[in-house]
């Protein structure tokens, strides 16, 4: 099974995704906090990104969601193409657009996204990985 691993970032689990902006710039990397406590398996979204990233990707509006906790309030969802090149993952996903992201990260990979994969440290406490 293909696996990707990333070093912890600010001592927290992190993954790196690749976005494709609509206006012709090349692939753009984004480092996300891997947070199994963000949303549940039935959530209507899989990632949180800055809304400006969603718009730069030409994201299709896909309803809104009500969040509680750190992002309390109603936020838009967009359909955004997300890639994990090393895993051959390339899908359009529902992504919540938020005005600001956690310090040191470009967004959050939520439980519904992480739950697509096997995930963990795979025996290396300094890394976090996804396996497809």
């Amino acid at each position: 099974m293909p696996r990707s691993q990333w070093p912890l970032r600010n001592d927290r689990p992190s993954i790196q995704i690749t976005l494709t902006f609509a206006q012709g710039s090349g692939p753009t990397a984004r480092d996300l906090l891997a947070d199994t406590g963000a949303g549940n398996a039935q959530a209507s979204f899989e990632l949180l990104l800055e809304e400006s990233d969603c718009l730069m990707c030409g994201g299709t509006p896909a309803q809104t969601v009500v969040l509680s906790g750190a992002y309390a309030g109603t936020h838009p969802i967009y359909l955004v193409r997300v890639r994990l090149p090393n895993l051959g993952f390339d899908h359009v996903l529902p992504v919540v657009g938020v005005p600001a992201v956690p310090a040191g990260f470009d967004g959050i990979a939520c439980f519904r996204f992480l739950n697509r994969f096997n995930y963990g440290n795979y025996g290396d406490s300094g890394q976090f990985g996804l396996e497809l």
Partner: protein
Amino acid sequence: MTNLQQLNGDLAKKLMKEGLNNPQCAYAGKFVGIANGNVVAVADNWDELARRLHQVEPDPAKTCALEVGRDYDAVQEIWGLH
């Protein structure tokens, strides 16, 4: 919000309500794309839906999408990062 976005949103809300109240409705379990106030694409996943919707209406601002049957009103918690 433009009139067109309002039109798209109203239809989306109607389909969302139908999907939650009647699991046997026409679009139950489907991914639906709306453009210019009409359903213009139906698919079995987001990848296919995005492709079809872009073929019909390349301007995302004139479209919206939903998964019929998904509960968009459910409040989801995002814990804080301290």
